[in-house]
């Protein structure tokens, strides 16, 4: 009943893994520029971005597709992970900034003499990684604890998550909060002491993101095919019956909700070194809504659909925003309406006859 990856599913997974971990690196590094098989830096970084988005889409599918919790604030968890990694990259700039100070330029500009409390230890790569998963995880846990205990559900929950990411965006926009204001963090030069904008580093970051995506797919599949996954989709379909079966549904929702936020944080930490910037616009309400659209387009409750949806919508986005920048938002809106009306099970619904979980 759960999406069962029978033989065909595993073949698709292995093909996908080979494409990400072998074909892309080979095309980018082994074939010289000018060769028809060469993959330019533009395409590698676009693919890297989409891989990070696909991790976010998977995280969203776990809470929305399986547990029935529609979050319209997942961009916040993604951005928090991105900021944690971003500050580490700021400190890697060292004294090579405009002001040649060990402090990041925006702090020198504000005449700050030391780092604010939240950036303690941010010069350490491992601490930045811990922060990238712990900050979104902790926020999600505390928020979820109150929301699920108070039995806030459905559209009310969605609206509160939307407000949460909006409030965080306003907070991060302010200069005095120590997040770099509306410019955020950018102009990164190195990661782990290695120059960041080289073809080799781009491919390395891409492969790391791809491995994380594949790991997230396997983790997600293990979760949804376990008894835990069956309880989650039962909560989505008939929460009261689940409670009367003796399950404390709030704990189930809190677990998957927090896990989802952690995955988003990880995706954000992988995303920022590849795109070279993180700023509060990542927390804008529209960004979080877009995440839900990826999953709806790909097909909820299928995992693979989340990856397909993230790739399809973002592929279309990078085409449309270049070719017809003014129609992109109309196209996105139209896509959402058409999918909702005619493809309730998304692209995966067209590809398979299997019922969603």
């Amino acid at each position, binding site marked *: *009943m759960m999406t069962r990856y029978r033989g065909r599913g595993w073949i698709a997974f292995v093909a996908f893994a080979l494409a990400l971990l072998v074909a892309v690196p080979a095309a980018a590094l082994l074939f010289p520029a000018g060769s028809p098989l060469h993959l330019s830096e533009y395409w590698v970084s676009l693919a890297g971005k989409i891989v990070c988005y696909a991790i976010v889409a998977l995280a969203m599918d776990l809470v929305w597709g399986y547990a029935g919790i529609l979050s319209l604030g997942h961009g916040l968890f993604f951005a928090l992970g991105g900021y944690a990694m971003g500050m580490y990259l700021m400190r890697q700039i060292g004294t090579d900034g405009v002001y040649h100070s060990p402090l990041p330029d925006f702090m020198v500009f504000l005449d700050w003499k030391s780092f604010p409390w939240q950036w303690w230890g941010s010069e350490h790569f491992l601490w930045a990684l811990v922060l990238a998963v712990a900050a979104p995880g902790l926020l999600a846990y505390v928020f979820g604890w109150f929301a699920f205990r108070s039995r806030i559900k459905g559209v009310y929950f969605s609206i509160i998550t939307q407000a949460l990411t909006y409030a965080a965006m306003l907070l991060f926009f302010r200069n005095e909060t120590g997040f770099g204001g509306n410019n955020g963090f950018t102009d990164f030069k190195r990661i782990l002491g290695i120059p960041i904008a080289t073809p080799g580093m781009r491919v390395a970051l891409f492969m790391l993101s791809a491995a994380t995506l594949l790991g997230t797919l396997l983790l997600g599949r293990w979760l949804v095919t376990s008894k*835990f996954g*069956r*309880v989650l*989709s039962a909560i989505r379909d*008939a929460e009261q*019956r689940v409670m009367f079966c003796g399950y*404390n549904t709030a704990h189930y929702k809190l677990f998957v909700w927090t896990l989802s936020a952690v995955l988003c944080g990880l995706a954000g930490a992988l995303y920022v070194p590849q795109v070279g910037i993180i700023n509060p616009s990542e927390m804008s309400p529209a960004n979080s809504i877009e995440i839900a659209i990826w999953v709806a387009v790909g097909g909820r409750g299928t995992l693979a659909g989340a990856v397909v949806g993230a790739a399809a919508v973002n592929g279309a986005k990078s085409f449309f925003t270049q070719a017809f920048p003014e129609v992109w938002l109309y196209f996105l809106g139209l896509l959402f309406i058409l999918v909702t009306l005619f493809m309730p099970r998304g692209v995966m619904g067209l590809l398979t006859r299997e019922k969603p979980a």
Partner: protein
Amino acid sequence: MSDASLGHIAAQQLDATHGVVLYLQDISVSFDGFKALNALSLAIDDGELRCVIGPNGAGKTTMMDVITGKTQPDAGSVYFGQTIDLTRLSEAEIAQAGIGRKFQKPTIFEQHTVFENLELAMKADKRVRRTLFARLSSEERDRIAAMIGRIGLAGTADRVAGLLSHGQKQWLEIGMLLMQEPRLLLLDEPVAGMSDDETERTAELFLSLAGSHSLVVVEHDMAFIARIARKVTVLHEGGVLAEGPYEQVQNDPRVIEVYLGR
């Protein structure tokens, strides 16, 4: 996350030494001034099969909501056995303590298979951590298979539950209750939508459960009540109007006036 935060429920043993499994005393519930239950008192014996009847709005469903923790009473006490105060427990804790409830409208997991429905209901450690790593033992598979046979759904184990007929869904829900191994079953209109044959088999099942389980059956189908009834409680306007053997209640002029006569 600690053990305690993830759904640890203190195992309380049911103490039915005085022969009473459920005890409601002076329960009152009001919604916006409307008294759904008005000082209702009721005691269910261990192993008893009790039928509860009453006109619409008499408070039958509200009574079940209070027992199962869905609704907090404004006043009064609800005890399961001698020691377990149900007003202090959540729905999940009450279910774990040994009370199963069947809803008026069959409530099953429509997108799961029959087998999975029974698996999820089966008595087990239902904390998150345990559920993540839970594996069915062959003994548990046998128990589920036996239940599928017992509720007349043989051959449907892998069928999606949403595709079952209305009567089959009712039976599946009853099967789910039994998988929880409850001491007390609350059954809200269990034979609604069943064929005569299914109704008869339900009556036989309930009669066979009485003794080892306590059952509270709310029904409108008087033929069904007559078939299974021993002691009947008549609710009216949130309180007990009459209580006693079926024949006695049936001939009670007050009962005839508010309910049977209409």
